[in-house]
């Protein structure tokens, strides 16, 4: 059978790819997708552990994560749309009004 370590390593790789995506892409939509990928990586790890320990908790947690992710995406996309409406641009490199 497949050792659970494999699943975990896969999860780590996916998570890293997601993290790189957040860091190097300038399109907020892609950044957003990368965030989703990271979430998925974490979910995968949790389901794997749930299977090892024969407990529902991991799965239940994943269920909630999915629900929250849905909510997050709804609000996040709404924000992006709104930003685009006011700035006519969604390049994150041009949004540095936080600069101190």
């Amino acid at each position, binding site marked *: 059978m497949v050792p659970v370590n494999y699943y975990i390593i896969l999860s780590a790789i996916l998570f890293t790819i997601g*993290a790189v995506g*957040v*860091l*190097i892409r*300038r399109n907020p939509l892609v*950044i957003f997708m990368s965030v989703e990928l990271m979430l998925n990586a974490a979910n995968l790890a949790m389901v794997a552990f749930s299977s090892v320990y024969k407990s529902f908790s991991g799965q239940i947690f994943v269920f909630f994560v999915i629900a929250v992710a849905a909510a997050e995406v709804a609000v996040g996309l709404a924000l992006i749309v709104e930003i685009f409406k006011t700035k006519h641009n969604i390049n*994150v*490199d041009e*949004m*540095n*009004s*936080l*600069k*101190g």
Partner: protein
Amino acid sequence: MLLSEQTYSGFLFLAPWLVFAPVVGLLVNIIFGGRLSEKAIGWLASAASGASFVVSVLLAMTVAGNHGEVLRWRLAEWMSVGSLTIDWTFRVDSLSTTMMLVVSGVGTLIHIYAIGYMHEDVRFKNDVGRFRRFFVFLNLFIAMMMILVSGDSYMMLFVGWEGVGLCSFLLIGFWYEMDTLARPSWANSNAAKKAFITNRVGDFGFLIAGFLMFWYLGSFQFDSVFEAAKAAPPGIIVAITLFMLVGVAGKSAQIPLYVWLPDAMAGPTPVSALIHAATMVTAGVYLITRSAPLYTLVPQAQYIVAMTGAVTALFAATIAVGQYDIKKVLAYSTISQLGFMVAAVGMGAFVAGMFHLVTHAFFKALLFLSAGSVILGLERGHHHLAHHEHKKESDDSRRRRSRETLRQAQDSASDSKDHHEEVFDPGDMRNMGGLRKTMPVTFWLYIIGTLALAGIFPFAGFWSKDEILADAFTEGFGAVYWLLTIAAFFTAFYMGRQIWMVFFGEARHEAAAHAEESKPIITVPLMVLALLSVVGGALNLPGLHTLTEWLEHTIEVHAGEFVMSVALISTGLALLAIFISWLLYGRNPLKAGQPDPLKKPLGFIFTGMENKWFVDEAYWAVFVDRYVDISRFLADVIDWRFWHDWFHDKVIAGTYNWLSNIALNDYADQRGIDAFANALGKWTQSLSAAMRKVQNGFVRSYALSVLLGVVLILGYLLLK
């Protein structure tokens, strides 16, 4: 004595109504007076005062029916603290009922008189609304006077004592926005204030006497005090009686506190008659009589009291000679007569003093009210003229009067400086003359009053004054006797002078020529008083001693003997004085603008008399101005400039400011702590300027630093 059985303390329960009746009267007038007519207001007040009189009569009957036993009616507790207990208790005995009868009797007559008098007065002075106020005050006065005479303790007496002082203040200052000649001025209100404050000086003495009394004799209640006094050290009794004398001097206008009474003539004439002649000013005499058991214990104090009275009697009589104002003459006469009374009670002749008090109340009220009638008569004449002949007034008389008003202004120190040329003084005897033709009723009433005052047989004044003189003579008060006898001579003289100047000769002013006689509402009360002035002597005729027997129940008395030589001397002197006054003023009546015939022969002495021996000026210079100076100095220099501005603002606040600003802020703080803190700040600033570059506002680079953190933490975990 079946009646006495029935009236035994039967009417005693009415005692509080002595006070309540006038209080009800004044309350009704305050609340509903605005809707009542003048007549209704006046008669209501008179009825209230009359009710008081009726109660007094009933109480007197009760006392009589009770063989002169002292009766008390306790209304309520007043103060009770520790060993101090003072009640509102009414004391009904022969002495207090005598005073009640005089006060309410004369008071009621004057109330009625005032209905007529004030009706005209408020119109001459253009403030009809003030009619009601007058009667409210008058009723208040009756109430306070009743408290004074019916109180069973020194403190209840003191309530009335100060209360009448208040009424006196209110009524002297009744026309508070003008002077006696109705010009806008502070004069009347100054006179009122002067009266109150002078009385307060006397009350200070009364209070001190009270403190001594309480702590050494243990009570304020009359009988307890008298009982305890018998065992007390005489020094204490001397102190008490002399401090009490200060109070008496204030209220009864004796030297040195008499100065307020002449100024008090600023009040309307009924007030002068009621308060400043007949009743309030005699309160001091009543007080000494009431305290007879104290005074008889200490002959030294008695002697001082007697001398005070005698000296006042003569001193005031001399001033009266030099006065031109019809009421001022009477005012000094009142002081002089009060001196007689005080001298009498000082000598221990309490009955004589009370006797003179009663008769004096009759005839001096009569004289004042008649003088009021004269003044009104002149006012009417002047009013008449002002309406019809004002323009025709000759230049000559105008010039003369302007000169006169100037002199009057100089006469009274308290008068305001501003005065107009065209001011007519209806009270100035130099404006009168020949009034016997225009005002015959008043003339005859005035004659009766004068004869009574001068002590001519058989008028009331003769009997009472003579009893005082006889007592002085027989009791061995030689100096007092002579002082009083000379004073009696002066009395007859200035009264004669007044009669000749006012009623005889020719009118010296158009107003006098057109004077009109007063209405019956004014003259009828006068007739009653005149009748009393004639027969009042019957109260205590030698041999009968009705009053003596009456008062015997309350105070220790001795029947005054009738000394024929004394009577003959005083009557003879009085007749002589009247004759001299005829020589000076009656034979050659004064002409308009002519100076007083006494001026030449007496010279500076007359100037002194004219100017009241400059006592007011001296008091002003010694006390009043100094007090003002001291309080100004304390207020402006000590309290404000030194204590407030300099010490607090400059020294305390200034030092604090200096400490905090210069010493701490500049040196310690700015150059020490601040310098260090600033250096620290600068360093931080440069550091943060470098760090700032990291904050580029790009979300991705922030995320990168997050990742860096994650890597570092993980690395740490790995290498741990």
